[in-house]
């Protein structure tokens, strides 16, 4: 895949997360992956169509998901990863993907995004590509999130 397509996703993360309560997101690792990803607990998949096709997966532990949901809801305690917390994580994934889509239009790529699919469970395997793809590990105040990006131009 084209490594240039990764930056719009990293930029989106850096731009959106401070707006929803995480002032200093950090990029900790970027690596190529050719095996299936393994769920950390909560996996959100968002699909892309039109001039770029593929999937992007946000993979985090349930603790991280609860931490993010709580922060997004102005510090409201989130004991269970319940419907409201799921909705918050789904919304975050949507914002990140929509923001990345806007960044992609600046590269003259028109894209459409699907509804996020949120799956819960630890250790299940996630296959989003037949070939190699990039995973970016981000850090939110000590909480890691993997963004697996398997997209290709479709011109």
């Amino acid at each position, binding site marked *: 895949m084209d490594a240039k397509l990764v930056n719009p996703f990293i930029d989106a993360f850096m731009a959106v997360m401070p707006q929803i309560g995480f002032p200093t997101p950090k990029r900790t690792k970027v690596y190529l992956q050719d095996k299936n990803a393994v769920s950390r607990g909560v996996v959100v998949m968002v*699909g892309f169509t*039109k001039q770029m096709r593929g999937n992007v997966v946000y993979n985090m532990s349930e603790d991280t998901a609860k931490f993010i949901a709580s922060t997004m809801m102005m510090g409201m305690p989130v004991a269970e990863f319940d419907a409201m917390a*799921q909705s918050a994580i789904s919304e975050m994934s949507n914002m990140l993907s929509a923001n990345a889509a806007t960044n992609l239009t600046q590269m003259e790529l028109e894209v459409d995004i*699907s*509804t996020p699919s949120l799956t819960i*469970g630890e250790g299940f395997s*996630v*296959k989003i590509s037949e070939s190699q793809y990039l995973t970016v590990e981000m850090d939110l105040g000590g909480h890691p999130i993997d963004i697996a990006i*398997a997209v290709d131009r479709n011109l």
Partner: protein
Amino acid sequence: MIVDDSKVSRAILSNHLSKTNFEVVAMAKDAAEALELYKEHNPELVTMDMNLPDADGIECSRRIKAIDPDAKIVMISAMKDANLVSQGTAAGIGAFLQKPVSTNDIIDTLMMMCQQKVSRVAVLRESYAKAFVRALRQGILRIIDLKLEPTLELYDKKYLEVNGIAVIIGLTGTPTGRAIMYMTKETMKGFASKMMGTDEVTDDEANDAVEETANIIIGRGVSNINDVFKDKEMRITPPGTICGAGIRVASPKLTTFKITATTDFGDICMNVGFAEGD
């Protein structure tokens, strides 16, 4: 039932309707035939042309209403003006469309006529979820030569439980959403054996078989929708496949439907969900 004196108009209309879940039970070329066929078939809905050789559409509607006060009639005519609408409404015509009509307009109108209160869920079920039921039936018939009648139900549980494999494909366009094909590991093996014609199937091959099948069937479902709604431009994303036990798929803010096709090697299930507010 279609009432129209023009053979071409009847053909166009029945062609529109053939792409939907409405079935044309009778076609009449004049008012006399319309009355006769109405009594014979007692159709759920009537489309009525204005110009008929033996009476106008309003008079014909009046006569139908006389035999069945609950008759649901929509006028589809070349002309549509205030006078016609007020006279028609007085005769009991429920809706007015102007020729040429789009399949879209027809479906929306007929759906509304069919239900006292057309709910969003009903529209999603009839126009969208059923397109995937047809796709699943056609797909399984073509791929493993099994004739099945999949069932469709609104799915309102908090989670979809997956033990085995789930292929998730995003839907973009209007509405956005996602479609999932899922089954147990045993069913996956059984399915892949049938598809490949051998019992010697590895886990990877079985995964690929289900992924490819999901791609074909969900793609076909979306084509079924696009055939009817020319302006929705629905597309599918590449598949994402998850495997494991005790996986829960949450669907916040989605209206979802479960489609089940029962086979002797287990249930082949689908869950299609559409975003709220589209």
